[in-house]
């Protein structure tokens, strides 16, 4: 019996990208359904009534929500190919810690950069650079966050790379100048088909931001 896998997502969302990358890593055939977050569909409201957010993975009719939870679900459900989380409990805990760090610390300052005004943008930039430096220290000279294998923490963070150009333009700084290892890591990730397929062009994101702001009612 073939699996039915549907992904409700939104092309600029770095959280949606996580789910896509995980599915692609596992070579899972899925039905991608683009969502309009300003006019939420029946299926989105029904499958995620609590948050009404993407991504939502619907596997044989059962919905799974929250991007990192979706990625872990994918790893556990299709264990054969490309393991995304380490098997060792301590390594797993480390991977989850860093993915959680990314979830808690990146969105705040980056949102200030693209949605903020004046002083807020500067404050967002400063905080974002600090977070990047912490991540860069954690990455060190490893190929990926988990070592030699692409995995959970890489998936948690790489989607933000598609917004880097926009952050740089809006806050007038160079991420490569501040954190060259992070950029080198991102470029390595982009060589993977799963990532290349799931991340939109930086240009497309940058051009979209003014429209997004208008729809959100920000200036």
């Amino acid at each position, binding site marked *: 019996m073939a699996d039915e896998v549907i992904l409700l997502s939104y092309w600029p969302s770095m959280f949606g990208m996580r789910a896509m990358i995980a599915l692609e890593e596992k070579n899972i055939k899925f039905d991608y359904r683009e969502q309009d977050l300003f006019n939420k569909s029946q299926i989105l409201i029904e499958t995620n009534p*609590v948050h009404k957010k993407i991504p939502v993975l619907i*596997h044989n009719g*059962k919905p*799974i*929500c*929250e991007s990192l*939870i*979706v990625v*872990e*679900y994918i790893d*556990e*459900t299709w264990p054969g190919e490309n393991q995304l989380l380490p098997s060792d*409990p*301590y390594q*797993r*805990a480390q991977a*989850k*810690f860093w993915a*959680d*760090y990314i979830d808690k610390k990146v969105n705040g300052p980056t949102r200030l950069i693209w949605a903020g005004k004046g002083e807020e943008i500067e404050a967002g930039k400063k905080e974002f650079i600090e977070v990047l430096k*912490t991540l860069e220290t954690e990455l060190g000279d490893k190929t990926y966050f988990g070592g030699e294998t692409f995995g959970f923490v890489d998936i948690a963070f790489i989607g933000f790379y598609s917004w880097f150009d926009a952050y740089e333009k809006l806050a007038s700084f160079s991420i490569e100048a501040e954190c060259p290892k992070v950029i080198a890591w991102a470029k390595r990730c982009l060589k993977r088909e799963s990532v290349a397929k799931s991340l939109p062009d930086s240009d497309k994101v940058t051009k979209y931001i003014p429209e997004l702001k208008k729809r959100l009612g920000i200036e």
Partner: protein
Amino acid sequence: MASEQVKVIGAWASPFVMRPRVALNLKSIPYEFLEETFGSKSELLLKSNPVQKKIPVLLHGDKPVCESSIIVEYIDETWSTSGPSLLPSTPYDRAIARFWASYLDEKWFRSLRSILKAEGEEEKKAAIAQVEEENSFIEKAFIDCSKGKAFFNGEHIGYLDIAFGSFLGWLRATELLSGHKLVDEAKTPSLSKWAEQFCNDPAVKPVMPDTAKLAEFAKKIFAKPPA
């Protein structure tokens, strides 16, 4: 490896600290509890969790594990043969448990604290209404997850029971301070029954903070400076 010494760095009033303690108790793993002084952070804490500088931290031998829910999963995986499983057995049920635990941490606890932080009756009423709405979601989640058994995890206390159960002290303290019941037989019959069973469990009793003591503590930390 599983036999190396276990320590938990934490504080009596923190619901997050309660989580690994309940998990270790359920697995019958002895551990040393290192209590932090309120208002300051020990050298050991800063060394063990340099990134977030927060409690709880589990030290297994010399290896630190941080973030309460992550620690509970680590405990379950490391001592997988001791006692019943804390996480459900299927990937889907695990995803549901993780979803609700995340909801509790990100939304529910914040809503609860808003009751204590509320200034004036209007704000307090709104905050209470918010928590009651969220409690109705959790009541339904309990019915779905427990499938007729005593706990979210079924027959035995598990990950989601621990996640929500560790907030019961603060829930009761908030009820005491606001003079309003949030979880009771009338509003949330299933959760009310579950709460009693959770609190009576021998793994929970020794680490559940006293409601009156917590209420005093809450008054202190939410005290508004004189105008």
